[in-house]
């Protein structure tokens, strides 16, 4: 069954991509904010934000937006690689 091995390979790669993005999500959503107190002692030059505050107010948000656009591209590339992507219109 060539079809099902192809599907399995596709799903394995999809799953790996899922774990990668969940890891990044965990880092930007939580891990970096565990260290808010030490990070707040660093001040971003010119902008004058304390780094810990900045990460929660803007840094992580920017990371999430970028991650989502990258994820859409990566997953589409995987789908195309295994021939399971939708036809382009």
């Amino acid at each position: 069954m060539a079809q099902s091995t192809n599907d399995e390979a596709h799903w394995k790669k999809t799953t790996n991509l899922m774990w990668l993005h969940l890891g990044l999500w965990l880092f930007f959503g939580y891990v970096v904010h565990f260290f808010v107190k030490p990070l707040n002692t660093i001040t971003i030059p010119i902008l004058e934000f304390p780094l810990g505050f900045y990460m929660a107010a803007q840094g992580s948000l920017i990371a999430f937006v970028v991650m989502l656009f990258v994820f859409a591209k990566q997953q589409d590339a995987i789908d195309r690689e295994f021939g399971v992507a939708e036809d382009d219109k």
Partner: protein
Amino acid sequence: MATQAAGGGDFIKNLGRIYGMYTGGFLVFVLFLALLEWAGVPNRYLGYLFVFFTLAVYAVIGIASRTAQVSEYYVAGRQVPALYNGMATGADWMSAASFVGMAGTLFLLGYDGLAWVLGWTGGYVLVSVLVGPYLRKFGAYTVPDFMAFRYGGNFARFLAVIVLVCCSFTYVTAQVYGTGIIASRFLGMDFTIAVYVGLAGILVCSMLGGMKAVTWTQIAQYIVLIVAYLTPIVILSTMQYGIPIPELTYGKAIADITAREGQMLQQGLATAANLKAHIEPFTSYTPLNFFGIILCMMVGTASLPHILMRYFTTPSVREARQSVAWSLFFIFLLYFSAPAYAAFSKLEVYTNIIGRDLSQIRPWMFSWGELGLIQICGKNAASLEAVMEACKAIAGHPGVVRLQDFVINTDVIVLSTPEIAGLPYVISGLVAAGGLAAALSTADGLLLAIANALSHDIYYKMLDPNAPAFRRLLVARILLLIVAVGAAYTASTKPSDILAMVGWAFSLAMAGNFPALVMGIWWKRTTTAGAIAGIIAGFGICIFYLVITRYFPGVGVKYFGMTSLLNPVTGAPIIQDLNAAMALPNAMESWPTLAHPLANKVGWFNLNNIACGLLGAPLGFLTIIVVSLMGKEPSKELQSLIDEIRKPRGRTILEEKT
């Protein structure tokens, strides 16, 4: 536009031009009102013009998008392009709580308020990676559709409908309430009447055209709300720092606030007990509750039916993924500006009100004081005389405003920024129109989610599977009306604390939906019995914790071993003498008001009830895994259908006859 909207193709191709012209038209309208103001038209009429004109535009779009087709009514014909669906989702997502409340929360809580900013953005990663695109491939009309298919029929469907109605109704009540507040404040209407007027605006958009009408109005509403949110703060930033990007300049404001906080402590204008330093973490929430709220809001995002169903409307799975990215981008534009509002307002209050001699208080605040939204020395700050008199009444008052003398309602932060910056009234009107757009668009999406679940899942799928399209849509519309009136009635009784109510909705969605959705897609071994047990256990514990801590705290303490929550700074219990509180006359009675000393202040593990999903979701996952492993593997047919969901290519699993 009516014929084009009905025709489909041309309309979709021209979306860019149509909404471009719409945006241009809106800006011209604002300039026109500015001219009227310059010519001396009173503010009150400008406010009316703003609200009624924008409502009329939404109504026209709603009526032009009326439809008699089932698939247009439920999923907008699945032809909404990724970018526009992202905009519609943004409006669907951002409610009165985001538009008016968020900046206020950040003003009051400082760093801890950022839990909401993080929690309400990061969840989209989960939507895109774990759930949304797979539901789109499945081809559902509603979230319960998927549950029924995956978990053996109508019992799972029924449970999913219960979860959906509980969380969406909690949420929509808060929205209708917000609509009422904005309408009453800017139009001077009675609050109850304002609620029903807002309701009429909501219904015009969604009654006739369902999802299709809601989609095209939500895009229009997004444009109004984002222009309204960014305009005052961009002008303020340009005036004070010379750079029109407030997100970059408010770092200076934060540095100034921190410096001023030290000064205030030294001069005795504030005490260590009442001053929460703006950048200091964990002064309002303990770390457990801070991260608990973030997790519940994020996971709740990926479980809320009114958000998930927006991704049923894209033409393809690929576009569903892109659409999630666009959604977060459009939401991000508002959320990363909210902390700037908070910082600029706080700096204004700390430098120009606190420490000022009473006679030099800035006049912008008196109009809010009149409404009881700003209080100084315990009395409404309606005029200079009122303030002086109130402070004289306090023994030993130094004659300057101290931090403890000053109380501000959080709604004022966004609404008053135009006045703080000394901008003309037309900008204030713009902000009101934006707030209204935010509340209306979210209420629309929620009402539609509830009415669709009742009409599609309960009526069509469970009661009368042979109903013709005409009758299905009629039932959908009647139910929409009933739910809407119910929500307006509940809202007109003024249930307090919007942010907590919204938080509950997220936690309920997280506990009830998330484990069953994710496991249904990602683990083929998940069985019907496992999922049903998981939903009941997870949702059950969450709603139990909510209801007990809020409405039966005495019972919780006496029979379920609950204890007082702790103060995040000192670590001491909030209720100092639990036995004394329990001995109060109404401790063991049900439904105490929010003012009751025990309500919302007891619990297990020092866990705030907003984060009750933290109990529900893990229990749900665990139950699903254990019960599934005890039963027989799902059938081969079902497993191969799950394989189909995982691949974007091919037909949707569920084919609806239309």
